[in-house]
């Protein structure tokens, strides 16, 4: 258990890692003053060729998507036709709406639940061994391939033989069509997301709670602060950058959600769980409409880049 306990003795680096980056640079330059220009040239010689290659490899798809979106299937330039078709498609609006609903269900639930559980464990569980067990248990859903997660929940949600419906049937209840009745399906796929990612929020929040200086908490407790005041005025202060970070990563995941939904509902019933990625998939690979799909891909990539630029401003990372 010692190994496990060490894994569970969670502490975190501060949200802003002690950067040796931009801030540490002047000192290093000064120490190696005579070598500066030589070293910098060496750095650029090492960095630029390989980074350039990777940058091009990752940027080409965007350029090709733009080119493809502006041409017809036979390769003739057709202007913004594909963009017009892509953006005037009512189903796009529908897909965006579904993605929004999914995000509104999933993000607050995961963040509040994860935060709540982290506080609960932080306040009640004192045993290091038990904390280590919870730590490993929380990691399990996160590391599982989404395809396998889809399989897991099929076993639970499917009509007739799915565990939940079989139990309902045995106890004389009507079956519930978790994955194939329109209002319910989106919540069923959302529940899978919540199952898989609440532990992620939990782990980060729990790690964050360990960085709260015990002195300030003790001082508050001596003053007779309630559990809520303690959270609201002390712990939340330390967790805020982490909450932003979690939100950032979960938002990115919600906007790209595909695998488990594809396996559980395939976007159905109808198009009620057809989120943005599934919609793009259908246009590109079911309808083989690569012109429209490329236009959509360009719009999505551009939108995400803008969104990233906005959101990353609030990030505690040393990216600036």
């Amino acid at each position, binding site marked *: 258990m010692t190994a496990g306990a*060490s894994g569970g003795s969670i502490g975190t680096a501060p949200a802003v890692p002690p950067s040796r*980056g931009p801030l540490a640079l002047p000192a290093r330059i000064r120490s190696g003053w005579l070598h500066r220009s030589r070293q910098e040239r060496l750095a650029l010689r090492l960095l630029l060729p390989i980074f350039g290659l990777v940058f091009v490899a990752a940027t080409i798809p965007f350029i090709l998507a733009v080119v493809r979106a502006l041409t017809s299937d036979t390769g003739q330039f057709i202007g913004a036709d594909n963009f017009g078709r892509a953006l005037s498609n009512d189903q796009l609006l529908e897909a965006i709406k579904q993605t929004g609903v999914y995000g509104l269900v999933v993000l607050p639930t995961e963040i509040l639940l994860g935060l709540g559980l982290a506080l609960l464990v932080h306040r*009640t569980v004192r045993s290091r061994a038990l904390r280590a067990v919870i730590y490993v248990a929380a990691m399990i859903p996160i590391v*599982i391939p989404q395809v396998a997660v889809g399989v897991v929940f099929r076993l639970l949600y499917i009509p007739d033989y799915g565990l939940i419906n079989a139990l309902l049937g045995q106890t004389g209840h009507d079956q519930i069509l978790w994955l194939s009745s329109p209002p319910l399906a989106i919540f069923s796929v959302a529940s899978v997301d919540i199952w898989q990612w609440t532990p992620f929020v939990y782990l980060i929040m729990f790690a964050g709670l360990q960085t709260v200086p015990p002195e300030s908490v003790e001082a508050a407790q001596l003053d007779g602060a309630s559990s809520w005041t303690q959270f609201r005025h002390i712990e939340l202060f330390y967790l805020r950058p982490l909450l932003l970070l979690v939100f950032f990563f979960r938002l990115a995941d919600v906007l790209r959600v595909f695998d488990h939904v594809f396996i559980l509902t395939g976007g159905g019933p109808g198009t009620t769980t057809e989120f943005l990625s599934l919609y793009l998939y259908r246009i590109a690979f079911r309808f083989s409409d690569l012109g429209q799909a490329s236009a959509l891909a360009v719009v999505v990539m551009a939108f995400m880049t803008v969104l990233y630029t906005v959101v990353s401003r609030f990030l505690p990372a040393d990216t600036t």
Partner: protein
Amino acid sequence: MARIATRALTWVILIVALAIFVFPLYYLIVTSLKSKAELFQAIPTLYPHNPTIAPYFSVLFTRQFLGLLFNSVIVGVSATALALAIAFAICYPITRLPVRPGLRSFVLNWALSLRFLPPIAVVIPYFTIVRTLGLYNQIPALVIVYTIFNLPLAIWMLKGFLEQIPAEVEEAALVDGGNRLQAFRYVILPLASTGILAAGIIVFAFDWAEFLFAFILTATPQSMTFPVGVQGLVTQFEIIWNDMAAGGVIAILIPLILMLFARRYVIAGLTFGVIREK
């Protein structure tokens, strides 16, 4: 009295939460160990009454998923090695050498921004490229795409590990008459080896779990990866649940084992190294 009640309540909540998170996996494993007869009992059994590993044999040999497993390993190992090598070449200068802060933050920011791109938007143009190059349904296509897509993660993790190595250690080696290459070989590389291993494990687990690229860029068992095969089991052979569950268990097992080894770095991996365990 009220305190005891609250304490009891919190423990109940914790235990229920733990059960909710663990039970689905337990049920997956149970299902994968059931015989066909047991599978279709009116009341699903909550533990296998006659446990059998036949479903695993069926998946791996009868359905020849062993080949897919092999593909997954090849793709994962190659893409991980490539991503680590490239990430190292990028991270070494930006953490150990005086690169201008603007360039450094551009590289890191660019890498992080890739994390925001939905794979489906990227795969649409890649699909065209791969077909034009004649790489459709070929393992190298997957290796290239996986390398690019997991590179940001590798860069951020390695950057985190490399910048933890104090500059003085390297400078000491340089003062002692070593050249930069020697300092790299005998000082940086050994000190960073744990970090490299951790980053490698996490990147491999991501490659292993990847579904969408493999689903779109491959077509036959010759190059399909394991998750694509499992997805096929779900849609085509819905009834053969124990096989499906066995496929799921195998898909889970490898990242799970790896993560147990690298458990201190999982959170770092998932948050791009922004949050690090002590």
